[in-house]
């Protein structure tokens, strides 16, 4: 189990680093493609459109 998870973790780190490197160099205005990308409702329409996304981050500010 340990060897498998260690390998998996190392592979994930490589994927994370490559995607972050690629995203960091993308032209301005291009959306990020990193599978680990984060966003919130105010900036990510694809999350806001999901039915499971219930957090209204703007509620508190109002």
């Amino acid at each position: 189990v340990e060897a498998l998870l260690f390998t998996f973790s190392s592979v994930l780190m490589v994927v994370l680093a490559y995607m972050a490197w690629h995203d960091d160099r993308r032209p301005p205005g291009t959306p990020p493609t990193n599978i680990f990308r984060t966003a919130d409702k105010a900036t990510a329409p694809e999350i806001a459109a999901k039915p499971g996304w219930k957090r209204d981050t703007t509620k508190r500010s109002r």
Partner: protein
Amino acid sequence: MRDLMFLSAWVALMPLCLTSALIGAVVWVWVALLQPNDLLMGFAQSVPFNKIVAIFTLVILIFSKDRKHLFLDTILVSLLLFAAVATVSWAGALAPDAYNDELYQKLVKDIVLTFVLCGVITTRQRLDLVLFTVVLAFGFLGVKEGLISLLTGGGHKILGSPSIGDNNSLATALLMIIPLMVYLTRYTVLTAVRFGLRVAIGLCLVTVVMTFSRGGFLGLLVLAAFFVKNSRNKAASLALVVTAGVAIYALAPDSWFQRLNTIGEAGSDGSFMDRVVAWKISTLIALDHPFFGGGMHALQHPPVWGAYIPLLDRLSFIPTPVPDLPSLAAHSIYFEVLGDLGFTGLGLFLTILIVAWRFCHTTDRLARRTPSLAWAADLSRMMQISLVVYLVTAAALSMAYFEFTYILLALICCCRRLVRQGAERPAALPVKPWQRREPARYYAASR
């Protein structure tokens, strides 16, 4: 085989580290937290991964043409002073041995990494990248131990990790990353990644329980209390915490409850009383060397320990038996810093932690005003929980030079800076007619 796999990953990462200081810093965080040398078993065990990536990152950071984003705030200035105090303590250590050198170098590396992170984290994406890296490094340990515990039906004894420490330290480290995982779960776009994070949180909780750490249990209570306090939807958070509590109560083995019952018997617990002796000796060292302490972990040097054992009567207000041990670790971040770096070091250490707490609070308040910074408000609250867990749980552990604490400080500083840059300024009040100033006609006419 494991060595080959890791080396392949390392070879794949190196070109990125050579072209980007950000990736170098991220890999540095990963290696510093994971300590792969302790997990490898073959020829790669002796490769100084941490040193290699640190040198690469610093060289790229210094010589690259990218704009440097260096800044100083109260935490970073205090860290510089803390490093200066540590240098004086290290140079005048009571026990100038290799362990003293090793711990000093570790602390300096941690502080350098903090500054490097502050230099490269310039956007939210970069901040989240570091968070993912932290979760990947510690999450691996949490998931591994949790999975093995479940597969063996609780028969697996968790001894800790060479990179973090014993079972108590492992529990603390995992409790510190759980709030960050909760933040990432909320804001990660891909469902599969969110699902993976949720599974990892569950397995980390299993690991914390299965460490049989009493400090870990207290940390779990603190985590639950602050999670409810800091969450927006308190009813849902309370329901989640109660469900998790019921699940732990129903599934935890009897031996875990027996272990927890010994918390109330601290006065007669030999392990606890030994810690009190270590705290007393740390205090005595600090009283003898109030400004710069006795050097890094001087307490653990048997001659120093032996020299102070007869002086325990100077602090006789808490009666303690004389332990039959050659030496002992400080077993408290506060007494550890007090003994190592004196009252000056402790003052700076507490300043850093208190200011970090304050920064989280002010960042949360500031970020709430701007809808697009809601993530920063959430992250600040989660980092505050992580900090509180450290302050409480590590009060009985020697974790003052724990790498993740310094990474967390860097994340707190960067989050605050991002929010201050992006926060909406309050709109200027309309100027009333009588507040309008006439142009300086007199001055213009006189010319």
